[in-house]
């Protein structure tokens, strides 16, 4: 069942000469892990803002076409309704975290929605577990590492029990291990708990390893949509657009790889592929 359906969607910011998104059509099924990538200015963040209701509710502009969340047009939903379906995590955890203690931060959204203390307690324990940070519950938010902060932001988004977790470049300020921590949590939420994940990300090595599907945007248009190997098989086009190809996949491409079996997406897959190649 499609949890998200976009049909011929075009969006133009107020006073902009050209549309930021052009005739986008796609459908995301429940339980998918979708990576969205493309150069700056391609429309990635605009698309994310269209899915969590920031556009059109807080930002003017002109939209045509349809976006349906769980079968209902997003334009007929209030931001409160949308926020129960779509949990958002942004680039800079500092801009999102407002409390001095992790537990307070998690309680904030729940208090606003008027949950009883017992239910709040239950959900806080649950999301700390889901984000892999039960030990951070009573920590100050100030002393956390970047990766820990983003996992707190993810836990906050999960506290609303959304169908979709939407993240806009959640690792751009993180060190390599913090980045890996965030993606491992996303993979686990997706595989073990069936949460639909949509993540805008420049780090294509992470998308290749964790996403089941990758969308490439360029100049407002959806130019590629497929499994990671299908997208990373189009190496010349990606280079022209300015999308980084994971090093191991690029190497395989240079060695003549062109299909699912000859385009490894992780170091482990590449090791197996190359050992076979050198032996043959």
């Amino acid at each position: 069942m499609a949890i998200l359906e976009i049909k011929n969607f075009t969006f133009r910011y107020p006073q902009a000469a050209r549309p930021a998104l052009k005739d986008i059509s796609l459908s995301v099924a429940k339980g998918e892990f979708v990576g969205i990538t493309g150069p700056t200015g391609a429309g990635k963040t605009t698309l994310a803002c269209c899915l969590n209701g920031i556009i059109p509710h807080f930002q003017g502009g002109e939209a045509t076409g349809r976006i349906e969340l769980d079968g209902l047009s997003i334009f007929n939903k209030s931001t409160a309704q949308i926020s129960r379906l779509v949990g958002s995590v942004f680039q800079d955890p500092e801009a999102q975290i407002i409390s001095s203690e992790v537990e307070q931060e998690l309680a904030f959204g729940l208090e606003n929605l008027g949950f009883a203390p017992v239910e709040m307690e239950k959900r806080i324990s649950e999301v700390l577990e889901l984000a892999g940070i039960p030990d951070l519950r009573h920590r100050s938010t100030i002393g956390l590492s970047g990766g820990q902060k983003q996992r707190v932001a993810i836990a906050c988004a999960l506290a609303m029990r959304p169908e979709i977790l939407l993240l806009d470049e959640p690792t751009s300020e993180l060190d390599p291990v913090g980045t890996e921590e965030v993606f491992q949590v996303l993979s686990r939420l997706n595989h073990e708990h069936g949460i639909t994940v949509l993540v805008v990300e420049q780090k294509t090595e992470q998308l290749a390893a964790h996403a089941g599907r990758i969308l490439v945007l360029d100049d407002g248009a959806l130019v590629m949509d497929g499994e990671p190997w299908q997208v990373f098989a189009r190496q010349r086009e990606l280079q022209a657009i300015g999308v980084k190809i994971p090093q191991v996949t690029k190497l395989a491409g240079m060695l003549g790889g062109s299909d699912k079996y000859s385009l490894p997406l992780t170091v482990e897959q590449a090791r197996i592929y190359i050992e076979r190649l050198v032996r043959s």
Partner: protein
Amino acid sequence: MTAARQPLIKVENLTYQYNGAQPVLKNISLEIGRGECLAVIGQNGSGKTTLVKHFNGLLKPSSGRVYINGRDTGPQKVSTLARTVGYVFQNPDHQIFHDTVGKEVAFGLKNLRLPAEEIERRVNEALEAVGLTGHYATYPFNLSKGQRQRVALASVLAMHTEVIVLDEPTTGQDYRESVQIMEMVKNLHEKGHTIVFITHDMSLVARYAARTVVLCEGEILADAPVRAVFAQPELLARSYLKPPQITLLAQELGKRAIPPDVISVREMYDLLQKARADKIGCCG
């Protein structure tokens, strides 16, 4: 000590703490020679920015000394040090404050009281170097963040400083913009500038730096050529870092005559082609 042999930047037992809190840098000693290209890497909060802010006097040691060209930075003003050390902030919006790109780039030059023609020449040259020719009169905040990053870089370039320090110059940039910025940096290095840059992108370290300093909790964990550092993944892991994907692959394949310090896809490709040819050679 003769001028020729004296390091351009010398850090001696540097300790720094913000307002009496725990030290962010603990007894750091380091020398950077003229013409080097050095990457400073380490996890979030390891002290990278705090360290490089000492190079142009934005911070002064709580204890220890930092020397630029043999002179202690302690008593020197930032405006004096800025003639030798240019600094590009991580967030260009912390740096840009004029209403046109041209004025922004000219600001430091006016402070040097250079003649107007010289200022104009240098501004145009710097804008050309960063690919922003024609944007002299543009309002900086009408540019993309990537372009504003390049405005910040241009204002440092125009100063013709011996040393250029860049704090995460590619964060928030897409792949193409990152490569563009780093190619510019490489160009400056080739022209003789000494470069110090901070990054989390290990493939950029592999591609552009010769030497890398790994910081971990305010201390130097390693200070060595890039290949030597990437060949030690356990050491990098202590500062939440990982070698580039291609280096990890080399280490996985290690037993098969692929050295553990491969740092580029091209290098790996050539090694594998050779391994395949040798195999054919021995069996044929």
